[in-house]
């Protein structure tokens, strides 16, 4: 009898893989986006099973909230929801890509990198906001400076998006 955490993992993994396949298979971009939201939510649930509660919350807020709204906004803005808006051409490419993908995942699954030494450690508060904050803002640890640099990255992204999308500056 498998344990409850194993059953939970397999249910979440099945939902994640099926919705990820739907992202690729769907012709309508809006349906792809909604399938991707389901994938993000299941990955957030997997983060909770890995005791990363803060990352799970951030995943839902940033990915399923902000980024997917941006995707849906652009799809609606450019009126791409009709299946004929961008027609998919080529018969050979999907088959070759699928075969190569199956080969790739087989190689990954049998590679010795997958089998890790030891068993997972039991830690109770590895992913709480308190732990994340203590690590992220500690002057002794190397995360504070990259965190500040991230603000410049986001500023450049904001300026870049405005420059790209605006007709005349």
């Amino acid at each position, binding site marked *: 009898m498998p344990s409850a955490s194993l059953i939970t*993992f397999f249910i979440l993994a099945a939902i994640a893989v099926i919705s990820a396949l739907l992202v690729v298979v769907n012709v309508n971009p809006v349906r792809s986006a909604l399938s991707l939201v389901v994938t993000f939510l299941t990955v957030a649930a997997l983060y909770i099973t890995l005791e990363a509660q803060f990352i799970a919350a*951030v995943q839902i807020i940033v990915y399923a909230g902000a980024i997917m709204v941006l*995707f849906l906004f652009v799809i609606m803005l450019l009126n791409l929801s009709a299946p004929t808006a961008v027609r*998919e051409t080529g018969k050979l490419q999907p088959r070759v890509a699928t075969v190569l993908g199956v080969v790739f995942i087989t190689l990954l*699954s049998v590679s010795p990198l997958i089998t890790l030494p030891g068993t997972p450690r039991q830690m109770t508060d590895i992913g709480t906001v308190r732990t994340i904050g203590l690590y*992220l803002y500690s002057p002794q640890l190397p995360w504070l400076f990259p965190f500040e640099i991230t603000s410049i990255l*986001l500023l*450049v992204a904001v300026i*870049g*998006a405005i420059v790209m999308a605006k007709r005349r500056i």
Partner: protein
Amino acid sequence: MVPTSYYMVLAGILFTIGVIGVLVKRNPIVIFMCIELMLNAANLTFVALGKHFGQVNGQMYVIFALAVAAAEVSVGLGIIVAIFRSKETINIDEVNLMKF
């Protein structure tokens, strides 16, 4: 207790689906979605390995990957809007201005 290798295999499967989507699709917005899928798979391996070794470092990397993903999506969708405005299409087979 779920072994960490199960999470690694799941992340590998999600990453492969993303790669296949990037190779197959002709709509750049769906290609962006597949790139997000690949980023999510990488984040999942970071968190799983961080849990395995009992360290918070994996989650730190995920936070920075999230910031980079948000920046990438905003700039990329801006580029797509600009291309659509000038060429009236975004099929990547017809947008080959930088090819030659």
